């Protein structure tokens, strides 16, 4: 067996700074009477998705109130500040 050849190479990958993990907000135990926000970024199909979802949601939780808004792929700060106070929980869909 011919003597071994050692090939040492450097790592081409960029360092990604460690980030402090944030925990999601605590869950609601019950949706009765709650305000459910529905967010989508206008990509076709999600409006239909939410129409059906709203219907099923109201069957299950008659007292729930929904609040549908449409915005950019990443919700802008302005929209978030305006929308957050009006909802207790949310469903965020982008369809892709």
């Amino acid at each position, binding site marked *: *067996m*011919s003597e*071994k*050849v*050692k*090939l*040492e*190479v*450097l*790592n*081409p*990958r*960029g*360092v*990604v*700074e*460690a*980030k*402090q*993990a*944030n*925990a*999601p*907000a*605590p*869950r*609601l*135990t*019950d*949706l009765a009477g709650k305000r459910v*926000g529905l967010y989508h*970024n206008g990509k*076709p*199909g*999600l409006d*239909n*998705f939410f*129409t*059906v*979802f709203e219907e*099923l*949601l109201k069957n*299950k939780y008659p007292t729930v109130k929904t609040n549908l808004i449409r915005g*950019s*792929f*990443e919700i*802008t700060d302005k929209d*978030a*500040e305006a929308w*957050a106070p009006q*909802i*207790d*929980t*949310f*469903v*965020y*869909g*982008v*369809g*892709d």
Partner: protein
Amino acid sequence: MGKPGVFITCDTFADDAESASRDNAMPGVRRSIIKSSEFYKLRGDVKTIRPLVEGVFDNIIDAITTPLTLDEADTAREIKDDDGPDEITITAESFLAAIEELNQQFVEKRWSDGLPFIPPTPERVKWMLSGTTRSPHEVIGRVNPKQGIATIEKIAINAVMAGARPEYLPVIIAAMEALTDEYFDDLHILVSAGSFSLIIVVSGPIAKELNMNSGIGFLGHGWRANNTIGRAVRLATLNIGKMWPGANDMGLTGRVNPHTFYTFAENADLSPWQPYHAGRGFKAKDSTVTVATIGGASPMQNFYGGMIGTWTAEGILDNMVNDIIRTDRGLFMLWGVKGVGQYPGSGVGARNHFIILFPELAAELKNMGYDQKSLQDGVYKRTAVRYEELSPADRRGIQTGIEIGVVPAERKAVFEAALKPGGMVPVLISPENLHFFVAGGAPGCAFSFSYFRLPPYNRIAVMTRLVTGATLTRAGVIEGKNVPYGA
């Protein structure tokens, strides 16, 4: 902001979503997955999408109501993208067996681009760094989507892999400076489903010193400088920004020119005009790199020239004007749209056009009295549309565009004046949105690319950077601060 939520995504994008939640420092975000193959077909109508929603309804409700697990709530841990040690060692019975092993490992780890690369050994990286005065640890910015830190050393490692030579490094660095600039939208070109691509154009004397090709076949194979500079940018972005086709780079068809983007040089010898950057805030004798996002799979709009037909400068100019009117005329109504991203008008409406003129055509245009500036003004005027031809939606689009700042302040007066009977309304926000590059041989072809003037996720998608810190060429040795100029 204290609101418990759930993120709905299609299975094709499940990895993408998982990776994005880590990028945004909330790995525990609750996600609900729907099947891509069903969603894209059924979404067209409430009736057809019903079964899909019913299928995933309980999952969404659980995501909102079941309490967080310990793991999800744990904020003590850090999200660390573990990409292995700084050095990788491979042993094999022969050098080439080791190369084969390295190639296979790197492509499986998604660290390469599918073609063979030069092993970035410490010695090779030192050899590459000899091409710049800049320190290896200098951070020039971050690359999306994972905001990886772009240092001169990481760029040099990827430049070695690409097969570049040290004298090319300053050009590669300048291109990466444009892409990682805080205002450049690198996210859209690197990850969007539309398979967007880049043009990387080198202007000024450094191109000749690196013997870049700008004659016959300038966009094609066979030119080490053109091909490896483009490839270095490809490898550096995918390795520093950490994206992979189908995982979080969602280019559906895959890009045309995927390994080298469109990387070429202006034909300084044959061009009768000053370099591109001379009219854009740089001195004629400078060497620069202009990086711009361009449209996806079918990018090139051909204005002919070549040898099959006879051509006249007027004829090609007509083709160009008609093409710009045809593509941009229908966008007026979108000028007032809030846009796809954070900034008004982002990712819609008016466009930038990148037009490649062959040297003979530029010579004819010069004989007709044109230089770059006057050609910009000429085409800008000839592509304006009569006010009376605008639909109400067009007029409303421009009006709102002015109000929400899509039309910048310095252009307001021009459009307000044009929006009257007898007025001529430009389809281009400004003549500066026409970018002319002179490249090709004799005979040559004229063609163009175009892209949104306002990209979806940041302020600009075209930028020219000065080449600095060169050690092996006369051009590009300017020290000191760069003068970025984004149109």
